[in-house]
């Protein structure tokens, strides 16, 4: 039988060894090996996750064009585009942190599960250090959650739901695009000026996160200028013939129809509304009006002549005459033969902003990049002075109110900017009721 003897020296030695063992993981954790998909070679891979099939495939195709252009500019090709007008001068055309930028693409199919699967594949198989893209809020929120768990940065593409930087915000997610609240805040004063305070609105709303938050935002903003809300009818996303939803509007007493629809839904609902003669109708001695709070040039083109004279809002438009917009339109137009859409603009900006943040942080560590983006103020990217607010990772900038052009000169010339709403008018506190319910949480580097 063996006997264990305890000595004072032995206990001290053992304690020191155990203490060193416990401390070892921390001591050996160097910044060089502490985050997901740290680029080891001479290249860095970005993941562009856009709808390449499905209803938003055209929007996705335009986003991909802009991503490719951004990569070309980052690697020193082309004319440099908005890198020349960007207020930050960190980007030198030698990739990011000296590493050549490569990219992989995924197809979201505008479905949350497919988008998560393709993002997961890009992170796990292709070692993408950042994921960006999306043309739907449902998709953006789903992929943002995945990126948070995986420890990579998500630079959102076209997502307009308040929830993306509201109740579903994440520390690893950043949105350059504007949101439903901003649309309402920008549009309401113009609607008041054009149509007066004595109006009754009837809402048709796409039945998912984006539609709900936009409707809530527009209703609140229009009721603040004195409008009444007759009804809000939720329409399933799969609806193609809106006649059953538009017909009840005719005799509802409402004199404004607000279409909280996007893409194909908007094209179909607006077509039905125009077919039913709503634009030529008079109610209560006033002309019946239609409002489309979120416009895109691509869908305005799809809606054809029906958009003429109809007000809405947009994040950016190719006709803007600031130096950044002109540089981007020239660069994109020369490469592809037509002007970029707002989706293309926002993803191009996001790619540059990510690259710039990495340069300023001196690392691809998502927590370093997040810190670098939080509170970052910049200019020269087409929206005037802009700030990535630290509290919710939402960009704050001017918002455009647009109108369907009465006399377009070309197939691209379908919208005209009627007002550039200053940032101060569309700003809201981080804890605003419409954005409450979620926590930004802590950055996850995947370590």
């Amino acid at each position: 039988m063996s006997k264990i003897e305890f000595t004072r020296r032995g206990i001290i030695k053992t304690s020191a060894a155990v203490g060193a063992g416990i401390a070892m993981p921390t001591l050996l954790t160097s910044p060089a090996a502490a985050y997901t998909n740290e680029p080891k070679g001479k290249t860095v891979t970005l993941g562009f996750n856009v709808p390449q099939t499905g209803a938003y495939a055209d929007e996705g195709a335009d986003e991909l064009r802009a991503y490719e252009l951004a990569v070309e500019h980052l690697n020193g090709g082309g004319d440099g585009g908005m890198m020349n007008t960007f207020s930050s001068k960190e980007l030198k055309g030698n990739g990011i942190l000296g590493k050549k930028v490569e990219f992989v693409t995924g197809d979201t199919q505008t479905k949350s599960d497919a988008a998560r699967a393709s993002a997961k594949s890009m992170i796990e198989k292709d070692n993408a250090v950042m994921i960006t893209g999306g043309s739907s809020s449902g998709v953006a929120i789903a992929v943002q959650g995945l990126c948070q768990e995986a420890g990579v940065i998500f630079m959102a593409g076209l997502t307009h739901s308040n929830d993306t930087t509201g109740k579903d915000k994440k520390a690893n997610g950043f949105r350059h695009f504007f949101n439903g609240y901003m649309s309402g805040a920008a549009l309401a004063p113009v609607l008041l000026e054009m149509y007066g305070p004595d109006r009754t609105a009837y809402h048709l709303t796409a039945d998912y996160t984006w539609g709900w938050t936009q409707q809530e935002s527009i209703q609140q903003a229009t009721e603040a200028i004195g409008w009444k809300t007759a009804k809000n009818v939720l329409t399933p996303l799969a609806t193609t013939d809106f006649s059953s939803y538009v017909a009840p509007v005719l005799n509802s007493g409402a004199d404004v129809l607000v279409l909280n629809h996007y893409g194909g839904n908007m094209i179909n609902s607006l077509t039905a509304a125009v077919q039913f003669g709503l634009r030529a109708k008079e109610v209560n001695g006033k002309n019946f009006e239609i409002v489309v709070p979120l416009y895109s040039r691509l869908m305005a083109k799809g809606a054809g002549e029906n958009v003429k004279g109809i007000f809405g809002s947009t994040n950016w438009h190719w006709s803007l005459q600031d130096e950044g917009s002109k540089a981007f339109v020239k660069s994109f137009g020369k490469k592809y033969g037509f002007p970029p859409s707002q989706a293309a603009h926002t993803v191009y900006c996001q790619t540059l902003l990510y690259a710039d943040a990495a340069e300023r942080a001196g690392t691809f560590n998502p927590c370093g990049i997040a810190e670098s983006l939080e509170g970052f103020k910049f200019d020269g990217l087409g929206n005037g002075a802009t700030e990535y607010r630290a509290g919710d990772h939402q960009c704050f900038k001017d918002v455009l109110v647009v109108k369907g052009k009465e006399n377009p000169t070309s197939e691209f010339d379908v919208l005209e900017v009627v007002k550039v709403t200053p940032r101060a008018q569309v700003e809201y506190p981080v804890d605003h009721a419409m954005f409450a319910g979620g926590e930004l949480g802590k950055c996850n580097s995947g370590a």
Partner: protein
Amino acid sequence: MDAILLQVLNGLDKGSAYALIALGLTLIFGTLGVVNFAHGALFMIGAFCAVTLQKILNISTISLDPTKTDFLGDPLKIKTPLVETWFGEIAGQAIIDWTVPLAVLFSIPIMLVIGYVMERGLIRHFYKRPHADQILVTFGLAIVAGELVKANFGATEIQVPAPDLLAGVTDLGVYLGFDVGRVAYPTWRITFFCFSLAVIGSIFAFLQFTTFGMVVRAGMADRETVGLLGINIDRKFTIMFGIAAAVAGVAGVMYTPIKPPSYELGMQFLVISFVVVVVGGMGSLAGAVLAGFMLGILESFASMNEVKSFFEMLYLPSIDQIIIYLVAIIVLLVRPRGLLGKAGVMED
């Protein structure tokens, strides 16, 4: 009351599309015994015949306007359609304005050929194969057709407007004693409904009053016996496949001003049309038409706010999305052969 009437009208024009597609599906199933999942794609191809004709009629000569600039600052390109150059501005614009009615004529030979090629080139090889094989191959064909259209025309909807003369609204209410404007209905949708009735009537008349139709009906009843009489029934059925394709095609053309077409149009109508066929009775032409209109009207009523609220109280939300399938379940449980189906069909 006016709200109910408006929904009846909505149901009739929705039902017109369902009935036309289901009629073609039933013709193919009744004659060839094939479950054609590519039939919705034929409807979509018809719609894109209108888009194609619109593009053809808008082929233009280009001149530069040095006084205006495009988005890159280059002189603006002014397009003048060739039809305006050839026939003068007014006549040219009128031709472009009437694109959709012209596209009906344009699409018929195209759809007949597509139907013929589809039947001879692919589907005839599957006559003796199980229905599952037929469904797989025709569904695959539908996907291929959709992707080809997307590759050539993009994914976004394309507007093909109705002629100006038929683009406004018709105040049907004033004929029925309602106040002015209470039952104002889009003129083109009324036109589409009338057109559908004319096509359906023509198909029935063709089958009922022509020798060709008589042989086809006889073949549908007893293919073998008709063959034994020395009649090449296969050839006649191939022609019927072409006619069914043409019916789907012209329906697609006329539907373009109602719903701007995209490559997904076929799939959007396909499932509903099969439900219509099942509810009407597999192989029953009259059943397909009756069920088409009936389900169209039911669907429209189900989307009324009052009806939706009522069903929500019964814990049945989104009744407008499920009503058609609920009816299909009830019909299949109570009367498996469908409303006007022949005894024995689907009742084994």
